């Protein structure tokens, strides 16, 4: 028989003799491995969730916001300074080769009224390309088209959250009239659901009207041609960075920004947003995993402790084996295989536990059970001592 097989047989034999002790020792490893797996899968799940949210923003999209307003020392944040114009967007469409579609919009929070109900939401005046840039399917009806845009038609497309809030069933919303700012608008479509952004905003709580209509009827600005947001989609994923550079160069030129001066706009790519959230996720995973790793180390120390005890206990056995010809190597292998068997079986059980069960419930249950069990055994041992023997114990 092979020496390793012999050692494995011996190891399983001697672990089996001390079943309870072996199991208790393994428990550390079981918990350690189990928690590592649970932590990693929690981390993975969170990351996948974030990825999904980010890709829901649109494919290969770049977002361009106008700069921050400044009055005295107070800075207003992105979009408060009207530096972006419709002709900026048109120039981007004309002059940047890495770009597929360009859209722009102007946004204002307004009250939308349908019959006797109303709903406060974000009204976006935008272009037909918006749907393409955001990669956002229409669930029912149609999106704003070029004719609506050119003729500044009074049509509106509802986000799914708005449709649900204004109409009992959104299927019959198409063709109905709603009023925004006292102007009647005809509903031509309902958007599919996009869910929340990574920052928690509900993307479906929105209505879309043609930009031209918004400028004329809803948000008549003192500065014609102002937009709050320009959205751009790159030709491909590889071209996102290239597109960003082109857009930045073009806008700096158009806005006559000197080399040293700061931009009066901000270009964000989805990758940048994704990178930030991924970083947060990674740190979280690392943290959880290192906590789990500590419990693994503790489990390992438990095994070491028990093996030390086992070696002391079996000093005589080792002597006999050596007398009949066991070499140092043979003895080393015997004990190594024993401890490895213990941690391997423990790891296996831990993995099954980690994969198989709902993590939080199990962890709670487990820690409670561990507390009771570890406390109970020594307590019972103490309570069963003979008082006379205990008193004479040295």
């Amino acid at each position, binding site marked *: 028989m092979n020496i390793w097989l012999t050692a494995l047989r011996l190891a399983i034999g001697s672990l089996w003799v001390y079943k309870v002790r072996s199991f208790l020792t393994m428990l550390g490893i079981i918990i350690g491995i189990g928690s590592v797996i649970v932590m990693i899968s929690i981390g993975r799940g969170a990351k996948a969730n974030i990825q999904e949210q980010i890709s829901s923003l649109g494919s290969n999209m770049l977002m361009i916001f106008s700069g921050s307003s400044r009055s005295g020392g107070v800075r207003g944040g992105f979009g408060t300074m009207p530096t972006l114009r419709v002709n900026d967007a048109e120039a981007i469409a004309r002059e940047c080769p890495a770009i597929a579609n360009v859209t722009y919009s102007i946004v204002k929070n307004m009250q939308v009224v349908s019959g006797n109900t109303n709903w406060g939401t974000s009204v976006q005046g935008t272009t037909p390309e918006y749907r393409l840039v955001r990669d956002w399917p229409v669930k029912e009806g149609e999106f704003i088209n070029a004719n609506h845009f050119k003729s500044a038609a009074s049509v509106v497309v509802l986000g799914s959250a708005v449709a649900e809030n204004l109409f009992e069933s959104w299927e019959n919303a198409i063709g109905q009239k709603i009023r925004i700012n006292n102007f009647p608008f005809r509903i031509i479509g309902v958007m599919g659901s996009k869910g929340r952004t990574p920052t928690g905003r509900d993307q479906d709580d929105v209505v879309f009207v043609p930009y031209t209509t918004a400028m004329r009827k809803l948000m008549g600005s003192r500065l014609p041609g102002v937009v709050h947001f320009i959205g751009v989609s790159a030709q491909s994923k590889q071209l996102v960075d290239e597109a960003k550079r082109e857009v930045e160069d073009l806008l700096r030129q158009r806005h006559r920004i000197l080399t040293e001066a700061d931009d009066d706009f901000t270009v964000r790519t989805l990758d940048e947003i994704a990178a930030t959230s991924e970083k947060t996720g990674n740190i979280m995973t690392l943290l959880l995993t290192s906590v789990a790793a500590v419990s693994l180390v503790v489990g390992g120390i438990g095994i070491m402790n028990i093996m030390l005890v086992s070696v002391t206990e079996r000093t005589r056995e080792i*002597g006999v084996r050596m007398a*009949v010809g066991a*070499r140092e190597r043979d003895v080393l292998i015997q004990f190594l295989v024993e401890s490895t068997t213990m941690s391997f079986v423990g790891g296996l059980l831990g993995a099954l536990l980690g994969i198989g069960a709902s993590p939080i419930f199990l962890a709670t249950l487990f820690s409670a059970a561990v507390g009771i069990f570890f406390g109970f055994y020594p307590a019972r041992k103490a309570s069963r001592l003979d008082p006379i023997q205990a008193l004479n114990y040295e």
Partner: protein
Amino acid sequence: MATPIIRIKELKKIYPMEGETIVALKGIDLEIQPGEFLAVMGPSGSGKSTLMHILGLLDSLTEGMYELEGRDVSHISREKRADIRNRKVGFVFQTFNLLARSTALDNVKLPLLYRRPRINGSQEKAMEALRTVGLADRASHLPRQLSGGQQQRVAIARALVNDPALILADEPTGNLDTKTGREIMKLLNSLHERGITIIMVTHDPEIGRFARRRIEVRDGIIIQDEED
């Protein structure tokens, strides 16, 4: 005469112990021929156990020369010593030293487990050794299910299983009553009659009389060497 199975010249063993050095063996010269039955006698502390450990290659020597079957084994590695113990030497201890959780048969098989290269038929070899000591029907018993005499017989079977050149017995009757002790001695005697070399350490002159040759060790030297 043939090559002696054991030839020792000027053997010395010095231990360091708590800052002092203890000279356990002060210069031993000894030749043992194949097939001899030798008793090493002497009071405790005389150095007879140290001598036995060196003869059995459990311990190394400090000075001098040791030849086993004509081969110089004075200064060889621990690993080589383990291999020679396995192939050439069978030990019988005062306290039997059986593995408590293994059956008689598994105890006898133990030396075969460490034999290199491995051999086939270890089961049969171990059964044969048990048969030699008259315990074939106890093969599946654990040591605690056997009497002291039976345990010592299992230990002797274990010593025999690798067909050693030499059996070293350290007070083999020390933990047994007189009657059982005699039986064990008879068993050793029958092995001697089959031509196996036996070296036995004892402080009991009556047990010593079973051997054909007796040496007496005192204070690390041989003071007497008599043969029947």
